């Protein structure tokens, strides 16, 4: 472990490589986390199936890629499919947990997560898969730092999608209705907003965002039916660290988590990857708690 740290000190370009890889993948994490923040903030539903939606989007891309459709063309298709899927999920299950306590939504979505992960496992088997994009790898600094074009393109696409979402939320009629509902659902209802429809749209939009993120993940990384839970925890880490409704925070936390994972993967070894994500979660929760301690007093 210390050898690896020393190595980073000796070869500064290695830091650049790790940071670059981390930031490029972190943008996709941020995208999925933004979806979670949306659902959390608007509907007060903590979606533990978030990561499985991502993986589902990834598998759609894999299937399309195997049939000769390039992942970038598959992205809108996956988003549409996931949008419909999210809408159905809302109509059948999520609708019934929106008004209930927080743990209900957590556990119900956890059940959905298990069903999705296991169904994907039955359909595609437990092997890791990629959506072949056929992009080249570029070199910088005389070949010491490499960037795969796929990652760069995924980063750009994630940025475009995020920008599009922000504009949509700001300017469109539905975006305004979503923000109004998030602020005060009852008042929004009084003003004539069909909150049930807003919730359905929000959840479906989140699924579509996840689907898009999943396509990008499948393009630049690997997917496997049971990787969903790690992606869910990543989204939770990012949203908890940033706070919902704080888009710049989500982006920074997403990029930061991506970078952190790359460095810990290099320093500690790949087997610590999940432990890093979970460890970050615990650290973030602890930090929040210390923050809150200033506002609360407990009987001692």
């Amino acid at each position, binding site marked *: 472990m210390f050898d690896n740290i020393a190595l980073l000190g000796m070869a500064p370009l290695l830091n650049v490589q790790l940071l670059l890889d981390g930031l490029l993948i972190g943008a996709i994490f941020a995208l999925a986390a933004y979806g979670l923040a949306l659902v959390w903030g608007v509907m007060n539903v903590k979606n533990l199936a978030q990561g499985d939606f991502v993986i589902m989007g990834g598998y759609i891309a894999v299937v399309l890629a195997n049939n000769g459709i390039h992942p970038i063309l598959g992205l809108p298709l996956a988003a549409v499919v996931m949008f419909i899927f999210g809408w159905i999920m809302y109509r059948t299950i999520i609708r*019934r947990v929106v008004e209930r306590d927080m743990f209900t939504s957590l*556990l119900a979505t956890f059940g*959905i997560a298990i069903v*999705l992960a296991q*169904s994907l496992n039955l359909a595609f088997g437990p092997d890791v898969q990629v959506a072949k994009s056929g992009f080249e790898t570029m070199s910088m600094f005389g070949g010491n730092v490499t960037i795969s074009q796929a990652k760069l393109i995924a980063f750009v696409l994630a940025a475009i999608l995020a920008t599009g979402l922000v504009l949509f939320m700001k300017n469109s009629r539905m975006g305004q209705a979503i923000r109004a509902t998030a602020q005060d659902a009852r008042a929004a209802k009084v003003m004539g907003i069909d909150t049930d429809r807003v919730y359905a749209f929000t959840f479906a939009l989140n699924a579509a965002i996840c689907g898009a993120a999943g396509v990008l993940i499948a393009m630049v990384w690997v997917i496997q039916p049971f990787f969903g839970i790690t992606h869910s925890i990543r989204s939770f880490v990012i949203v908890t660290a940033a706070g919902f409704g704080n888009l710049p925070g989500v982006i920074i936390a997403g990029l930061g988590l991506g970078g952190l994972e790359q460095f810990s993967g290099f320093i500690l070894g790949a087997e610590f990857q999940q*432990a890093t994500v979970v460890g970050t979660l615990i650290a973030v929760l602890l930090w929040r*708690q210390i923050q809150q301690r200033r506002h609360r007093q407990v009987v001692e």
Partner: protein
Amino acid sequence: MSMSFNKLLLHAGVLLVGVAAPFVFPAYTSQIAMMWLMVVFAMTWDLQGGQMGYNSLGNIFFFGIGMYICTIVQISMFVDLGDYTAHSGSARLDLTLTQFLTGLGVGLIVAAIGAMLLAVVFGWIVFGLRGPYFAIGTLGVAIAAGELIGTWDLVGGGGGISLPPFPGEADGTLFYYFMMLGLAIATFLFLRWLYTTSFLLAINAIRDDEEKAEGMGIQTKRYKTVSWSISAFFLGISGGLFGNMIGFVEPLEVAFPTITFGIFMVLMALLGGKGTLWGPIIGAILFHVIKEVTWTYLLGWQWVTLGALIVINVVFFQQGIVGWMQDKWPEKFGIEVDDPDAAEKETA
């Protein structure tokens, strides 16, 4: 609390079924032992989730940690642990019956106390968290523990570690069965007593409104920590026993099965009716039967079925069986079922 004749009959009946089961169905002894383990899981989870309103997704942590502590004690009492794990596969630790029982006894005691101490330590960390943060935080602790122990070579890392086999000709199935049954009964008796004390009122107050409870002078943090330590105590013992029953300890599937046993706990308590004495027990037994049947007849689809069961249970039937019965026949309830506490309390 005085026992009515009906109640006594019910207790005696359950006890009789428990003792007779391995002799009537000898082929299913391990499965029924597992059922008692599930009963312990559900009851100890309900102490937080049902009665205190703190929905932990990481109680399995104490199960796994108890299993590892017990294993380490059992082995290092007789041989050097590092040597033993380094030669795993070829090394087999044969003990006499006295040695084995001493090792197991000491191991279980240390496991129980160790798990309790860790509950105090982690309680200090996680009990400042509320609602979903608490659930996610505890889930994180359990997942992290499994991942970290998997990289610790002294205890065999991800490859796991074998336990000394049960001495003699018998394979110990019956022995572990009665240990599990005994543990389930001990947990039940302890919680039944605990639920007659003011402790129950305090943790119910925390569930209903923690701020108000604090305002009334209840030392909420202390109650929460004690409640978690109690669960940890019984879970630590159950982990030690389960490790021996399986004969092999491994971090992800056996010791910290967060998304299987860790979630089963929650599901069983919800299915039976959380916040009641008998709810988790009924839920655990019913769930275990359903699980064994689906594992046998729906092989491949069992996990999908299980996930669907969670969704249906949580979304459509959250009050659980006992909760539903309380709603349906509130006046009959105290007479029909041995649970006056639950009838008075009403469903949450």
